[in-house]
């Protein structure tokens, strides 16, 4: 190889990766911009929101945060959302985790069928469940209660948790529970004493991800609650769709920021496992 070809090669190998990185960074900036804009706008006074051209520099204010916290029942909705997300997350991780373990490790007749059913259940449009759930909840007098929403969220969380945890348990060495069962543990005992403790990272990440999904859910919350147990997404839908009072962007961005912030923190905490889980969920499905 001549020195000319060599130098050409190195220049090329330096130039293209740089373009590639720059383009990737640009994409990242574009994708983050709406979130940045939301957070920024939430600190703007009304006159700074409605400007052309849009302002980047302004005197920040917490006005929208205070105003909206007082005016609407936002703190109660926040508590409701936390209760529902935690409740459905915990029920789903227990029920779904056990079932995922059964699919991964215990020979059950018909386990294959169950697996296919779970996969199919992910295709069920929630609207097909929302109508009968509303009617049944109404006749039982349990609309607008946390437990109704919690159980409704289990319909999409349990299959999801089952699938993720199944993959997780499949990767564990078999000897673990075998030795525990030789030592006299029952199946259930071996699961809770041996498997659960060593799977804690996976379990916690799955729990956090389930809680995020419950945190964001809108349709069931709209249908099954109205005042007492209503959640934050319902409030946001109300503000966004409020065309009578015009665009209340201050409130929208403040509540939006408030909703997104904790989720982003949690998601970044478990990001490594979250990415792994996503990849597994898509490929081993």
């Amino acid at each position, binding site marked *: 190889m001549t020195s000319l070809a060599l130098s050409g090669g190195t220049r090329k190998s330096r130039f293209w990766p740089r373009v590639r990185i720059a383009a990737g960074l640009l994409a990242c900036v574009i994708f*983050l911009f709406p979130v940045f804009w939301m957070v920024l706008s939430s600190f703007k006074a009304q006159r700074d929101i409605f400007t052309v051209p849009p302002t980047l520099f302004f005197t920040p204010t917490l006005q929208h945060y205070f105003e909206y916290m007082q005016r609407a029942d936002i703190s109660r909705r926040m508590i409701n959302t936390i209760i529902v997300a935690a409740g459905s997350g915990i029920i789903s991780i227990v029920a779904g985790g056990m079932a995922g373990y059964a699919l991964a490790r215990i020979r059950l007749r018909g386990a294959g069928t169950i697996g296919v059913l779970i996969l199919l259940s992910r295709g069920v449009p929630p609207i097909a469940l929302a109508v009968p759930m509303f009617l049944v909840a109404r006749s039982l007098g349990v609309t607008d209660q946390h437990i109704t929403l919690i159980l409704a969220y289990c319909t999409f969380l349990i299959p999801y948790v089952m699938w993720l945890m199944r993959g997780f348990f499949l990767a564990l060495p078999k000897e673990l529970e075998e030795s525990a069962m030789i030592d006299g543990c029952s199946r259930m005992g071996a699961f809770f004493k041996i498997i659960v403790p060593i799977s804690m990272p996976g379990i916690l990440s799955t729990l956090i991800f389930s809680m995020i999904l419950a945190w964001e859910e809108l349709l069931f919350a709209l249908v099954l609650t109205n005042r007492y147990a209503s959640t934050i997404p319902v409030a946001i839908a109300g503000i966004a769709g409020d065309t009578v009072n015009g665009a209340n962007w201050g409130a929208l961005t403040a509540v939006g920021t408030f909703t997104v912030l904790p989720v982003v923190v949690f998601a970044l905490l478990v990001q490594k496992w979250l*990415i792994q889980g996503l990849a597994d969920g898509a490929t081993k499905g």
Partner: protein
Amino acid sequence: MATNTMTAGEVRRARSPVRSKLMDAASRWAFMAPAAIILAAMLAYPIIYTVEISFARFDLMTFSAVEFVGWENYAHVFDDYRFWSSMRVTLIYLAFALPIQIVLGFGIAYLINAPWRGRGAVRALFIIPMVVAPVVAGGIWRMILDPLWGIMNWVAGLFGVDGLDWFGDPTLAMASIIIIDTWRWTPFVILIATAALLALPRDIFEAAEIDGANWWSMLWSITLPLLVPIIAATFVVRWLGAVKMFDIALAATYGGPGGATNVINLFIYEEAFRSLRFAESAAMAVIVLVLTMVLTGIFLIGTRKLEDRY
């Protein structure tokens, strides 16, 4: 069983094989029971109930299905032009959003996968749009795309494009729904795609490079074929999410203008809970359910076929 330190339970189990078999089965199924019970009550039963309502006349006084009317509700639905237009809208949304998200997702994943120090951080940052609640996403984009005060039209103005009425024009409204959905979901594809790209076997590429293959032919004849199974799987997962799309349309356009973005889930929701036409909505829900199941089945079989081929 040569030990003489057996407990009473073990002796009993050893004595009655039928009983021990039953106990064993029970201890196996105990793991499945909680999930099975909840899903039967909250998933299977509602579906059956939906099917029942869809074949019945729904009485709003007693709020229950009163008499069997056969296919009448389905006939009403098929006669309703709004149903067909909503199906068309949903189809357009899916036909644009899914391919755009897959191509963008794998493209950006390729870009950010360049070996450099900040790779992990950039990948982590892409998680942020993914965990913004869809209803919040719809809301913020409503602000960004606002015809008068939105930053998008200001930027478009810099390029000499003025007065884009994002939510007033039917085509632009659909475009904005697709943009919002793409913004929210492409990061999901990016994360799956980066994991897939990292898992590609290095040695094949090195061998190809030594053989003098150029960038394009490596992409076309090595990378893409290796990625086909995962692209197909990502498509199925995204499809399962996209057919349920509801929140973004509700927050951003509420189906407007004139039903131009009224995706089927929003339409059924409106018919059921605003117009209280439960029987027709149940019929529509069943139609959507069956269509989704059939298409999902076809996609899954297609994915398997692709996996076998590559």
